[in-house]
């Protein structure tokens, strides 16, 4: 039976890309949800009078 390391590498690469891609999607969603909240906090700080 030949070694077929190319097939093994391809299968592991597909799994890594799919799982890494999904993880990146979650990180991007988290960043998108955080952005308006951080903007709101920033504008409240700017609006508050300095003591």
């Amino acid at each position, binding site marked *: *039976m030949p*070694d*077929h390391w190319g097939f*093994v590498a391809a299968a*592991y690469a*597909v*799994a890594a890309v*799919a799982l890494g891609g999904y993880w990146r999607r*979650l990180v991007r969603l988290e960043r998108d*949800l955080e952005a308006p909240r951080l903007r709101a906090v920033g504008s409240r700080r700017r609006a508050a009078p300095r003591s």
Partner: protein
Amino acid sequence: MVTIVLGWLSAIAVATGMILALLIAPRELTQGNVQRIMYVHVPSVWVAYLAFTVVFAASIVYLAKRAPGADRLAHASAEVGVVFTGITIVTGAIWGKPTWGTWWTWDARLTSVAILFVMYVGYLLVRAMIDEPERGARYAAVLGIVAALDIPLVHFSVYWWRTLHQPPSVIKPGPATMPGVILLALLLNFAAFTLLYAYFVTKRVSLLRADADAAA
């Protein structure tokens, strides 16, 4: 905090599992190194079964109690399940080419997995297409329950029909029939992928909750 701990645990477990699968587990006698694909393929299908069973249970809870938490769990679990089913199908095809001589064949196991994948992609599309969240959740819950009927069909297809796909070696009653190191590598990857599933679902549920809070 739970999500961060789960994230690190799953990263360590996956790294350990991959080292065991690629470097420590021996070359299988009949299949050669291509058998190492099984350390990704089999745990992926296990997670797919788990994910869609969670969708099934959470959908029943949602329809019975209209609990938004159950709906979010079903949504998150379906997404993760689709990712792992995709990995199962593609890694199976890559294993099939050198072993069976074909990337794909319409036998009962492969066809029922393809149907499972398409049904849950449809489930996610239903959620995305319906603007009214409550109605979308209700339709998705019904689809989540109906689609889960394919899970036993997938698993037992190798017993019920004559297929090219071999019967299960691990997810079956009785002891596993394989050498200790191979079984250890497989079981460690089962645990690693299950942790990864828990991490993804926990994170996705918290994002769905934050999104709902922001919309309210």
